């Protein structure tokens, strides 16, 4: 709360006019970001609700669909995202320590991991497209319950698609932050943007942590890619 006396606040170029102290500013920024992440939980939550309901109704079709996921690419992609989270965390740490070049470097590696993730996702998407596993008139499936499997693929594309969109947005944000970090916009006193982008990136990672078992690992009988 804002009960710390304004007199104590040393003037700081990064303190916006409507805040009394840097601490108040930072608290507001952190809280704002978490509230935003809650909206993201609910955004994906809508799709998870649909996924859960249909999985309950059409479990066999879900197993069938899951067997056409690319197990290895999916697993590798999980690892890639986890690595990116590590470099992101190290980047934020570097900025807390005020080491701007190091921050920018870690952020750059994070971007590379992010691009790698999207690249692998692209390979997977391409494979599904070629195998006529994109819903609609083009969809073609020979196994049992083709319609419900199409439903599964609708969820696969929608959920991973929105997730990939978030990764893409994340990459842009990290790039922006990396640039400004390199230019020296942040220091040990003021690095809220770096932290917030970090939070966003980790959140997107958490979404994938759930998407991975829900989409790729429903059944043990994998068709390895």
């Amino acid at each position, binding site marked *: 709360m804002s009960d710390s006396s304004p007199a104590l606040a040393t003037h700081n170029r990064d303190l916006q006019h409507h805040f009394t102290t840097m601490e108040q500013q930072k608290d507001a920024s952190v809280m704002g970001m978490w509230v935003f992440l809650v909206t993201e939980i609910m955004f994906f939550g809508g799709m998870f609700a649909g996924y859960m309901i249909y999985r309950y109704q*059409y*479990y*066999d*079709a879900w197993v069938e669909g899951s067997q056409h996921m690319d197990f290895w690419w999916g697993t590798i992609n999980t690892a890639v995202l986890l690595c990116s989270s590590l470099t992101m965390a190290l980047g934020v740490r570097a900025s807390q320590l005020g080491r701007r070049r190091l921050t920018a470097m870690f952020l750059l590696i994070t971007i590379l991991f992010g691009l790698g993730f999207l690249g692998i996702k692209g390979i997977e998407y391409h494979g599904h497209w070629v195998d006529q596993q994109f819903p609609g008139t083009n969809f073609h499936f020979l196994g*049992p*319950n083709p*319609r*419900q499997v199409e439903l599964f693929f609708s969820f696969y594309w929608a959920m991973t698609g929105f997730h990939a969109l978030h990764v893409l947005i994340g990459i842009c944000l990290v790039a922006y932050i990396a640039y400004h970090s390199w230019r020296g916009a942040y220091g040990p006193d003021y690095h809220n943007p770096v932290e917030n982008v970090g939070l966003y990136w980790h959140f997107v990672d958490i979404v994938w942590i759930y998407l991975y078992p829900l989409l790729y690992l429903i059944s043990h009988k994998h068709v390895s890619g």
Partner: protein
Amino acid sequence: MLEHVPFWPARASTTAGQVDALFVFLLILCGIVCLAIFTMIVVFAIRYRRRAGHEAEQIEGSNALEFTWTFIPGCIFLCIFVWGAYIYFQERTPPQGAAEVYTVAKQWMWKFQHAEGQREINELHVPVGRDVRMIMTSQDAIHSFYVPAFRIKQDVLPGRYTTAWFHATKAGTYHLFCAEYCGTMHSGMTGDIVVMEPAQYQAWLSGGGSTAPLAVTGEKLFSELGCSTCHHSDGQGRGPNLVGLFGKPVLLEDGRTMIADENYIRECIQNPTLRIPKGYKPIMPTFQGLVSDEQLNALVAYIKSLGQTQPKQAAGSSVAAVRPQLPTPQVH
């Protein structure tokens, strides 16, 4: 008495009386409460109007009052809930032995198939004094079967059956409305429910020419589509024996149990491999797109009629005569 109230809608079913009773009760209750609140507001507003020499008295509030007006309305609300739920429970629980009318809704018309075989469009004849159960599905968007005089309404969904039932009490012609917005001519998707005295209804039934009961039509389809090659009534076929299946629980391959209701039978015809009974192979082809909704209704009516010991309707009896009933269904 309510008949004389201007604008009061006609009442022609057993449900209507129940709904009206709760409605009138709520009208009186809410009327009294509203009146009390409005009177208090007016009285306070006049009595404590701002004037010279009068000052507001600061009152913090009163926990006792707050609890009172939390607790008492809470209890009243609970009673209303129970009453409303009771009516709804009855509306959603069709009585045994009701006459069945299969309904297909589409943009923008109502198609009815009586179990006796009569077909109607935008007009439905039913007798006074008999339970009638509507088994409804939609061919396109969501529609809603709404008969204000019966106080019943049920959305009609594509891809599955929803049901509603009523027991008409008064002869006459009543509105049938589509109550769920369904596109351009939503307001034109109306029809008439013609409630007839039983004798007249019988006359109407027999006057329609020679129509085969729905189950008989279904039986014909059953063999035409080749269903009978696998579904033997002796349990020796590649598919499960369907005699006596209806209404029984079915143990599925994945360990779940489902009741073989109309929706289950419908689903099995359209997506045969989705809910396979235990012990059977997923070899049945799908009939989605191959049979129309009307044909599907006939098939369902036929399968339901199989093995009914006490034929409850004309259709049931005629089919039971053709198909000897077998004692133990294989699927349970």
